[in-house]
C-alpha cells in the first residue's frame, strides 16, 4: 500500500480496499479473512480477488451460507487471539447475524468487566442505486450506529478505502466497515494520506462559509457536486464527511456549524430515527444559539427501495434537491 511520499497511484475504490486488506495480510500474521465466496469466486464485489491464491485457504476462508455462525466464528477467533476480518457480502444479509453482533460482539468486553475484548473487523457492502430492489438496497450503517460497543466507519475516498482497515486494527474493538456499492468502481488517487487514515475523526472535504453539508459514504459525492453548483449561485458550502458514525466525531461538524450557522444533513438511509436525526439533535443540543436557520435533512424516502430506475431515484437524495434546499436555507436566513 506504500505510496512513496509524493508519488500517487490512480486506482479504483475496490483496488484500494484490496490493497489495504493485502497489506495487513502481509504484515500481520494474525489477520485472516472469512466470508462467502471471497476465495474461489473472487469476492462478490471482487474486493478479495487473488487473495486466496496469494495467501491460501487457511487465511482466506470461504464460508457456507451461515451468516450467524461465521460471524460468531470471527468473534470466537478474536477472543482466541486472532484478528479476523469477516466479510458479510452485503448489509442486507447481516440481519441474520445481528444477534451475534449485538448480543455478543458489542457486549462482551463491557459485560465481562473488561476481560473479553472482541477485536473483530466486519466488512460489508451497503447502499442503494443499482436497481437491486427492496431486499438488496438497504443503507443500515446509521441504524447500526445506535449500538454501543461497536465502531462504525464508512470510507468514502480512495485513501480511506485503503487505510481504514489498518486503522481499525489498531483498536481491539468490533469495527464494522461499510463500503458503499456505488463506490467500488470509483476512480481516484491513492496518496500518502492513506497511511494516516484514522477511524476517529470526520473530515472537511470542502471548505465553505455559508452552509455546512454534512454527509458520509457515497452521498459525499452528491454533496460535493451540489457544492459546485451552489458556488455558481454564489453560495459557498462546506462539505463534511462524517467518516465515522460511531463514536460520532461531533467536534468537526459543530465547528463547521459555528462558522456557517446553517446545516443540511444528507443521508441515503431512511429518514426517521437515522444518523441524520442524531447529527441534527447534537447541533440542537450544542450549537442551538449559533443557528441562523433550523437544521434540515435530506434522506432516503421511507419505503423499501423499488426496482424501477425512476422510482429508485425518487427514493434517494438527489443533487438538485440538495442544491435547492441549501440555496433556500441560505437565502431565507441570509
Amino acid at each position, binding site marked *: 500500500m506504500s505510496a512513496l511520499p509524493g508519488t500517487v497511484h490512480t486506482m479504483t475504490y475496490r483496488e484500494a480496499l484490496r490493497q489495504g486488506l493485502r497489506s495487513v495480510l502481509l504484515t500481520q500474521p494474525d489477520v485472516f479473512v472469512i466470508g462467502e465466496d471471497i476465495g474461489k469466486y473472487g469476492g462478490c464485489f471482487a474486493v478479495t480477488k487473488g487473495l486466496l491464491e496469494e495467501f491460501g485457504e487457511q487465511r482466506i476462508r470461504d464460508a457456507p451460507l451461515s451468516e450467524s455462525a461465521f460471524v460468531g466464528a470471527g468473534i470466537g477467533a478474536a477472543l482466541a487471539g486472532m484478528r479476523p476480518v469477516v466479510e458479510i457480502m452485503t448489509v442486507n444479509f447481516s440481519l441474520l447475524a445481528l444477534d451475534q453482533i449485538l448480543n455478543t460482539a458489542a457486549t462482551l468486553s463491557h459485560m465481562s468487566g473488561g476481560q473479553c475484548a472482541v477485536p473483530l473487523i466486519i466488512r460489508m457492502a451497503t447502499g442503494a442505486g443499482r436497481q437491486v*430492489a427492496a431486499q438488496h438496497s438497504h443503507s443500515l450503517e446509521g441504524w447500526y450506529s445506535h449500538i454501543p460497543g461497536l465502531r462504525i466507519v464508512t470510507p468514502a475516498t480512495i485513501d480511506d478505502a485503503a487505510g481504514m482497515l489498518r486503522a481499525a486494527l489498531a483498536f481491539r474493538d468490533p469495527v464494522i466497515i461499510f463500503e458503499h456499492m456505488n463506490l467500488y468502481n470509483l476512480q481516484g488517487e491513492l496518496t500518502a494520506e492513506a497511511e494516516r487514515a484514522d477511524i476517529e475523526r470526520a473530515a472537511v472535504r470542502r471548505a465553505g462559509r455559508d452552509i455546512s453539508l454534512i454527509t458520509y459514504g457515497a452521498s459525499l459525492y452528491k454533496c460535493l457536486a451540489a457544492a459546485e453548483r451552489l458556488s455558481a449561485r454564489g453560495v459557498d458550502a462546506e462539505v463534511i464527511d462524517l467518516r465515522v458514525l460511531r463514536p460520532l466525531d461531533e467536534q468537526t461538524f459543530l465547528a463547521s456549524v459555528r462558522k456557517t450557522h446553517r446545516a443540511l444533513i444528507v443521508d441515503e438511509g431512511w429518514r426517521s430515527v437515522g444518523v441524520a436525526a442524531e447529527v441534527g439533535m447534537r447541533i440542537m443540543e450544542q450549537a442551538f444559539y449559533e443557528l441562523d436557520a433550523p437544521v434540515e435533512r435530506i434522506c432516503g424516502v421511507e419505503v423499501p427501495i423499488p426496482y424501477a430506475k425512476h422510482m429508485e431515484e425518487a427514493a434517494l437524495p438527489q443533487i438538485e434537491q440538495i442544491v435547492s434546499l441549501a440555496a433556500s436555507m441560505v437565502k431565507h436566513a441570509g
Partner: protein
Amino acid sequence: MSALPTREHGLHLLAEMLRIRCFEDRCAELYSAGKIRGFLHLYNGEEGVAVGVMQALRSEDDIAGTYREHGHAIARGIPMRSIMAELYGKLEGCCRGRGGSMHIFDRERRFYGGNAIVGGCLPLAVGLALGARLTGRNAVVVCFFGEGAMAEGEFHESMNLASLWRLPALFVCENNYYAMGTALDRSEAETNLVTKLSSYRMRAESVDGMDVLAVEARARELVDYVRNERSPAFLEARTYRFRAHSMYDPQLYRSKAEVKEWESKGPIIGLTQRLKAANLMSEADFLQLQRAANAEVDEAVAFAEHGSLERVEDLTRFLYAEQPA
C-alpha cells in the same frame, strides 16, 4: 428411467421448458442491451424441475421461491408479458415494476415470490402451509430453493417446525451443486442432502432434475402424500445451472468442460431425444414449439416495451395496506 408420456403430454412438457429457455435467453440479451437492470439470475438447465413439479399442483396450491424464479412463474401460468414488464420496471409488471427479476409475485395465482434472501422463503412457506391448514383449505405449499440455502439456520428451523406441526408443504431443493461459486462439498460437511431430513423425521427423496418426466412422477407422488397424509416432504432435484450465477459472475470456480458435459444432459435435449426416438414428436413439431415460444416472448417484449412507468407520486403507496381489515 422414467416412463414415456403420451404425445400430447410430452409435447406439453417440452413446450413449457422451451418457453422458459426462450424467455431466459431473451432476458440475457435484454440485459446486455440495458433493458433489464439490477440482478438477473437465469434458470437455464433447471427447467425440468419447475415444469415437472408444477404438473402436480392445483390452482389452490401455494408457491414460494427464490430470486431465480422466472421459470417457476412461467410454469405456474403467470403471463410472460406481466413478468417481462416487471423486468422492464414497468407499471404493467406483476409488481408494478417495483420488484424486478428477484421479486415476481402474483397473488391471484398464489405465487408468493421471489425472495432474494437465501433461505428467506422457507419460514414463509411454513407459514403458508400453517395458514392453509388453519383456514381449512386442502392445499399444498411448494417451496423451491437452492442447495446453498440448506446451510442456513432458517432451513433447520423451518424443516423442524413443518414436521413437528405436520404442515402440508413440499420443499423442493434445486441442487445445482453450486451456491454462487461455492461447490456443495465446500459448504456442507454431509453432501448427501436427503440424509439431513432424518433430523426432522421428514420423508425425503431425490430425483434426476434433468429428467422432467421423473421429476413430474416424483412430485405427483409426494404432493399426494403431503395432501393426504398432511405431512411435509422434501424432494432434492439434482440439476445444473448452465449460465453464470448472475450477470456479474466470471465463473472462475468451474471449468468450461464441466459445463459442456452437463449441457449434454440438459432437460430439453433429453426429452426431445426421447420423444423423437419413440416417434412421439417430429422435427417439425419441435420447430413449431420453438416458434411458438419465440412468438410468445416477442409478444411479451413488445408488451413490456410499450408499457408505462409508475407515477413517482405513488412511491409511498402500498407501504401500508390500502384496504382496511
